[in-house]
Structure formats: C-alpha cells, structure tokens
C-alpha cells in the first residue's frame, strides 16, 4: 500500500510545483474564493515586512495571522512553496494513517458483532469486507491531494493549508488514542482559528470510548477523564498563547486575530454567508446578528454530540463540515478539508450526492464568471454573486445532511435489518424528518 501512496504524493507535488511555476499562480492567489483576509499570503508577507522593520505586525489592519505562523515564516519565507506542499502532504499522510487505523477498529468491532450474532441476517451486504476497506485510506488521501479546491488553496499559499494539516494531525493522534498529542494539536488548531474548539466534544467522546469509560454524568471516572483532557487542552492553549506573547512582547494579536474572526470587520466578498448580510445591516443590529451568526457554528455541537455519541469519528467529520459552512471567512480550502471523510459514509443514497456535487461544480464555475460581471464588467452586482454563494452553501448543507441521513440509515439497517416491514407487512421506507 505504500507504493500507491508514494506515487500519489509524487503526482500531487508535481501538479502543485508545476502550477507554482505557471502564470496562473498570481491569478489564483488574488481570487477571493481561495484566500480570505485571514489566510492570504500577501498579508503574511506584509506582516513579515513589518516585523523586520521592528514594528508590530498587527499595527495597521492588514495582518491577521497568529504570531506562531509569522515566526514560522520568518525562518521559512524562502521555502514557502515547499512548506505549503509539505503541509498538504502531511495532511494527506495523517488522514491516510488515521483512516487506516479507524478501519481496523471498525473491522474488529464488526467481527465481534458478527460473532455475537448481533446483526440481522439480511443485512450482510452492508457489512464491509476487508477488500472494500483496503482502498479507502488511499481514496481519502487521493481525494484530499488531487481535489482542485486543495490544489488551488495550496497554489495560492493560503495558510488554510497549515490549519488543515494541524487538524489532520489532531484527527490522527485522537484515533491513535494519544490523549496528550490530541489535546496539543486541538489547542494548536483552536489557536489558529477558534472554531476547531467544537471538535473538543467529539475528541472526548472518542477517547472515552477507546478507554472503555462510559459516558455517564454520575460516574467519577468520566469526570476525571474530562478534567484530565480539559487540563491538557487548556494548559497547552495557555502555553501557546503565552509563547506568542513572549515572542511578540505584546497582546496586540488577541484583538487582531480573534477579534477579527469573531467581529467580522472585513466584508470583502467571499464564499461565506457573512459579508452580504453585514454589508446590508444597520449598525445597531450588528452585534445581535453577529452573535446569532457566530453561535450557529458552535450551536450544532450539542445536538450532534448527543445524536452521534456512539460514532465520534463521524461527529468530527460533521463538525468540520459545519465549521466550513458557517465560519466567518471561509475559503475553498476549508471546504476541501470538510469533504475528506466522505468515503466512509457514502454507502447508500447516492442520488442526492450526485446532484449536489453537480451543483457544487456549477457554482465553482459560476463564481469567477459572476465576479467578472460584477467587478470588471460592472454590469452585474453583488446580488448575483451572493445568489451563487447562497446556492453553494445550500448545496454544502444538503451534502452534509445527506451524509448524515445515509449514515443514520445504515446504522438503522444494521440494527433492524435491511428489509423493513411495516406492521401490516408491507415494505417500509425510512424518512428523515
């Protein structure tokens, strides 16, 4: 299995290197779909220049990356392209390994269940065979590496690639069951862009499950583990933030990074839902709607965690998707990250997935066209562009809910049999309501 993976990595790196050398790179790095004010490479360069001049990079309103990133690129600025390619490679390998490991667990669980005759007889076809599962890790890695969205954001040197790498490492360490590393990577991801905070619940659920600690609010062992994890998570977060302070010598970065993410002052159009609303809104409603919009990201954690408490890995996927839809400055790179787990769930119901992928594809083609009409030709206006943004987000939401539905349906079939009968004996179907 190592040979195909190496080949895949080589192909991916070649494609990226070729694009870096072509004239497209400049064009891509200007596109609002690919870079956001948070992740634009141009802004990182500006921050570096300010840092070199001995000025705080956060003076002025250009640079919004975290201090660690800027110190990282302080040393690596000449090797930026390699760094970004490396980040993608790390993400892919981490995903590959974690999916492989997870598959093993699923398979083991399945075996136990089979031996205990827990599955109904007629749903044997739903059970995964090792042959099917053999290629899933490779497919996931391929899906991430050769995804045009990922390639675009890598070529644009969007720092979103680094965030994805951190999140992938978090997933890997969680699935391997390494509590400390999981907490550290999660805190790094949170430090980068707040929103991964919501992955905390999923990680906890998984680690609890792995250590055979039941989720029971009255049990001491449950609380003890939660406290341990919270301590590690908050501790490393504290260390990282403290480190940033000592590197920079001021707290400037807090309002400039997190304030910028949460209060959304930059309304440059992007593929998210924020800019249009807040450009239209009366100033005195701003705070209220800001809260409403931001709560959206965090709110889904609770119901999803309750519903999916037996399947924390799927919960991680759902959370990533929700973040990429509702975050304040989304880019296509985030979306690529949220698609990565798709192979696991797509065992049933492929009509919608096909339809939704078509919509996503068409939207990706329409973004530049409507942007051209609005900004260059001046004949269309922001409503045209926002309409496509909405469609794009609706498609994403449909996609996510579709996976959710497919996943639930599979679980239901596994416990109740594939051919459901109504009470009167006629064939029944499952409906998501």
């Amino acid at each position: 299995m190592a040979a195909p993976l190496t080949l895949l990595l080589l192909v991916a790196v070649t494609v990226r290197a070729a694009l870096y050398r072509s004239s497209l790179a400049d064009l891509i790095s200007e596109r609002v779909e690919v870079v956001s004010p948070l992740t634009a490479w141009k802004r990182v360069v500006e921050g570096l220049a300010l840092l070199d001049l001995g000025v705080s990079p956060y003076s002025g309103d250009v640079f919004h990356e975290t201090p660690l990133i800027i110190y990282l690129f302080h040393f690596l600025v000449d090797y930026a392209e390699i760094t970004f390619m490396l980040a993608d490679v790390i993400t892919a390998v981490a995903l590959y390994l974690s999916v492989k490991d997870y598959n093993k667990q699923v398979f083991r669980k399945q075996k136990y269940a089979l031996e205990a005759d827990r599955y109904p007889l007629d749903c044997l076809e739903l059970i995964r065979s090792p042959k099917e599962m053999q290629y899933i890790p490779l497919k996931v890695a391929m899906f991430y590496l050769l995804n045009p969205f990922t390639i675009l954001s890598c070529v644009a040197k969007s720092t979103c690639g680094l965030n994805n790498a951190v999140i992938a490492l978090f997933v890997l360490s969680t699935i391997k069951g390494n509590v400390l590393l999981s907490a550290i990577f999660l805190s790094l991801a949170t430090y980068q862009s707040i929103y991964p905070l919501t992955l905390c619940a999923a990680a906890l659920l998984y680690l609890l499950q792995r250590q055979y600690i039941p989720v029971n609010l009255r049990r001491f062992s449950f609380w003890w583990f939660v406290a341990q994890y919270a301590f590690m998570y908050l501790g490393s977060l504290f260390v990282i933030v403290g480190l940033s302070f000592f590197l920079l010598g001021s707290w400037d970065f807090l309002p400039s990074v997190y304030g910028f993410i949460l209060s959304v002052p930059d309304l440059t159009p992007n593929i998210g839902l924020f800019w249009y609303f807040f450009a239209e809104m009366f100033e005195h409603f701003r705070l209220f709607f800001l809260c409403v919009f931001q709560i959206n990201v965090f709110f889904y954690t609770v119901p999803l965690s309750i519903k999916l408490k037996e399947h924390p890995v799927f919960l991680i996927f759902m959370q990533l998707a929700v973040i990429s839809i509702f975050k304040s400055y989304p880019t296509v790179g985030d979306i690529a990250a949220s698609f990565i787990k798709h192979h696991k769930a797509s065992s049933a119901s492929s009509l919608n997935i096909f339809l939704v992928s078509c919509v996503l594809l068409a939207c990706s083609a329409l973004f530049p066209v409507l942007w051209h009409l609005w900004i260059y030709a001046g004949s269309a206006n922001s409503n045209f562009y926002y309409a496509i943004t909405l469609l794009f987000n609706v498609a994403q939401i449909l996609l996510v809910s579709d996976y959710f539905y497919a996943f639930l349906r599979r679980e239901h079939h596994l416990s109740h049999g594939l051919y459901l009968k109504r009470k009167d004996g006629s064939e029944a179907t499952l409906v998501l309501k």
Partner: protein
Amino acid sequence: MGLLSDPNRRRALISLLTRLNAPICVVCYMAGVAWFMGLAFEPFTLRTYMSENAMGSTMVEERFPAGERALGTGREFSAHKKKAGGMPVDWLVKTMQSRGLEVFTQRFSRRLPFPDEDKERYMVKGTNVYGILRAPRAPRTEALVLSAPCSPGDDNNQAVGVLLGLAQYFRNQVFWAKDIIFLVNEHDLIGMQAWLEGYHHTNTTGMDWSPLQGRGGSIQAALSLELSSDVVTSLDLVLEGLNGQLPNLDLANLFYAFCQKIGVLCTTQGKLQRNDWDSVSGYSHAVQTMMLMVMKQASGRPWGDHGLFLRYHIEAATIKGINSFRQYKTDATTIGRLLEGMYRKLNNLLERLHQSYFFYLMPSLSHFVSIGYYMPAFGLLALILLLRVSFQPRLLTTYLLTDGVPGVLSVLTPLVISHLTGVALYTLPIHFQEIAVEHFPVSETEAVVLTAIAVYTAGLALPHNTHRLLTGRGTENGWKVLKLVAVLYLAVLLGCTALINFSLGFILALTLVPVAAFVTPDVPKALSAFIMVILSPACTLLFSVFLFQELQEMPVSFLDGWMLYLSVISQGILDHALYGSLVYPLVALLVYPCWLLFWNILFWK
C-alpha cells in the same frame, strides 16, 4: 428537503422524469424558442423610461448655432487629411488650441498577427489627438468623452467638424462640472484601444503607445460620433460592445428622449420603430430588429468605436448619421444641438450611470426586454440538459465501482484528445501561417483561416475508439458515462456563457442542446453524423452569416456568403488578438471540444 430525502416521493419523481423524458425535452425546446420569439411582441416588453434622476426632470436648453461653420471646419479637415495622407496632426493641434482646449497627442504602433484584408492594414502606426476642456465649475475629478474617428477616404469628416464646432461652443459655456475630452482617434478601434490603455495605465494587448501627457478625471460616459454627410435622415444608435457588453440602458434612453424632443428620426440596428405591433409585418419588424441585436451581441466584437470603453466601466455608445432617400433631412446644427443636450444632461450626473439595466435586448428603441424576461428562454433550453442528466443518477458510482481504472481511462482519453484538438485549433492558425504561405499559393489571411478550418475538420477524423485500445473491449456503460460528463460540461459551459453574453449562449444552446439530447451510439450513423455536422459550431457561424445578411436586407449569394464567412473567421481571430475578445478562445478551447465529445459518443463501439 422533503422531496429530496423522502424516498417514496423521490422515486415517483424519478419515474415520472424517466418515462416522460423525451416529450418533456421536446416541449422545453419548443417553449424556449417560442419564449424567445415572444420577446419581440410589444405587449410582452417594457417601455423604456429614464431611471436616473439626475438626467430626468432637469430641463436643459440646446442653443448650439454653428452647424454650417462646423461643416466648413469638416471640409478644411478633409483637405488637410488628404494633404497629410492620414491624420493631420499639426492642423488638429492648432485648431483645437485655437478653440481654447489643452491639446495632447499620443502615438501608437501595432503589428497585427496577420494582415487584415478587410481594412487593408498590417503594420499600423498612428496618432491620436485629444483636447481637454477643463471644467470651470467643479474640481476636475470626472470627465466625459466625445470622440470622432479619423477614417481613411472621405468618411467621417463631418463628424470631426461637428466635434470641433461643439468644442468651440462648449468652451464658452460656464456650466460644465466635468472635464470634456474631445478625441480624434486614428485607425478606429486600434487607436481607441491605445488611447484607453494610455488613459488607464494598463496594457492588456501588448501594444506600443506613448504615454498620455494630459488627463482629465475618471471618465463617466463617452459618445462616439460617425457622420459622413452634411445632412442626415436619421441617427442610428449602436450599443453592442466588446464581448457583447452593453452600456447602461439610461444612455439609450437619453438618446431616445432627445431625439423625441428635437424631432430627429432615430433608429437602432438601422431599423425605425413602427407602431403597428399588432400586425404581422409590425411584429416581424420587431423580431428582425431584436435578432440583429442578438447576432451582433453574439459576435462579441465592438460594433463601433465606443465598444472598448465598456471594458473600463465607462458607459458608451456610438451615434451614426445615416443619409438615405427620405424627404425629411436633419442638418448639422440639429445634430449639434442633440449632442449638446445629451452632454448637458450627462454633465448633471452625480454618480455613475447605474440605475437602469445592463442586460437587455431592444426590439425597438422605445422598448426593451430585461434579463428577467429573456433568461427563461435560455433556462428552458438548459433544462433539457438537466433532464437528460437526471435519469441516470446512479450511473457514475456503479461505473466507477465495476469498471475501475480502465473504465475511467476510457472516458478520460476522449476528454483529453478533444481538448488537445481545441488547443491546436486555438494556436496553430497563427503559428503556421508562414509555413502555409511558403507551401501553398495563398495569402497570409487565407492561410490563417484555412488552417483553422483544416484543424477543425481534422478534429472530426480523430481516432474515436481509444477506449478499445485501452480496455480491449467497448464497455456498455462507457459511452453513457462519457455522455453524462459531456452533458454536464455543456450545461455549465452554456450557463456561464449566457451570463456573460446571453446572445452567444442562446445561439449555441439552440444548436448544441439538440445534439446533446439525442446522440447515442445506437442512432443511424450517417444521418446523425450529417445532422451533427450541420449543428456544429462552425456551421452555426455559417448560417448566422447568411441570416445576418438576410436580416440586414442585403442577401448574398452562396459564394459571396462563403467569402464573408472566411472574413468573419479572420476578423474573429483578429479581434481576439487586438482587443482581447473572448469568443474565439471560447469556441476553440471549450465549445468545440465539448461538441467533439458528442461526436465521439456517436461513433462509440
């Protein structure tokens, strides 16, 4: 949501779509065409109205008196033009200076990729002369442009005369709040391109020009004047610009309003408007006017010197004087008054023209169809493609699962091959002209056009069954997947095209959608191949040329039509090279490969 996730209703919907697919497609096509033809029917259209308040209720008086003197200046210009054998730069500079303008010149030169036989030019060298009338009333942050071309021969002398006459008259008025730039450009669009690029400090086409020495504010609107006779019977308004872009409808409204006020006959597409919309001939007249606009817009080329302004967010139109055999004539004074009125209203603008429509079609100068009304016609055609896709939802996944890597390859190779053919069609004609001229008895222009046609035809003969080499057998699902990909590709492509240039998208959809809908390997080969060739992009262009001539009431014989067709192709390639028109690359790199995919499906074994 319910419809998508409830399996029962979904199944019912799918079975309905599958059973009635063909009839629904036919109905959609008919409805699309009928909708389009209905657009010209007057009760379905809107009357034009002025949306911009700053140009609406404010009254202006037109007092321009010096039409005769302007014609005299025009004659003087013509004499100096003949003497100089081109742009009489010194005379123009002196004349403009004596009228109190700040005068500047700009030199430019450009080598065309191949000789332009229509306009007989290859190495182009010229000079633009422009004078700026500084606004006395306001900070000079905005400007208006009035331009007239310096054309070879006896054309457009009167336009320059009127331009200079207006400059002299405008100089003595105190109410100008915007700079007014009077521009005389040489070599029509090439000069205009050089001037605009110089004005905005951009260089998109790799042309050589000297930088501008003087500038006004940001240009808000521009008019280009074409006038070749002392008196005219009517004025024609030309709106279509580069890539089918149109100026804000308010500019057309402004022109129409002043023509009504002053009592000048005005036309668009050279067609007067008629009042008998309820008669057959009245309706067909409106259809002709609209069709002419659609064809001009679809060609993607600038139809007047104004066409390049639109790229810079500047609303612009060309006003053409037409002298025909009517009794009623309009003299130069009236034309001057009309322009004076328009400029005074434009002078009142407080912001850029943006209130009215940018996407519209005009069946007559007083009526228009907005995007909301004409898009459904395209939507109905595009719906056919979606219907053809919708009945095979599971195909892709099952195909990927059963056929694996060779299956993917057998679909991928036709895609790659047809796109490579497209790239060849795009690059070879210009690169191979020298070789072609050496080996064949043709001129450079002919060489370019004939190479393009040759590459196009050669594409048809490409190996079509590469999948058999790869997999050793023709898979049953292979062509279905290829068709699915091709139909989706076509849908996205046409959708994007129709947004940028509705006319082009609609004409392409009219011919390509039936192809996409009916092609399978099972239909009779010879007949279908014939139909497909008839409906291919190149033949569409050929028919369009004949139809265009027919609509202009200048029918041509087949041979003349063929020559015209060849020159249209060369002009298309030139437009791309000179002004960055997108139609040629679009057709060569995307539409043609897409059509080749369907061709491939037809010969799938």
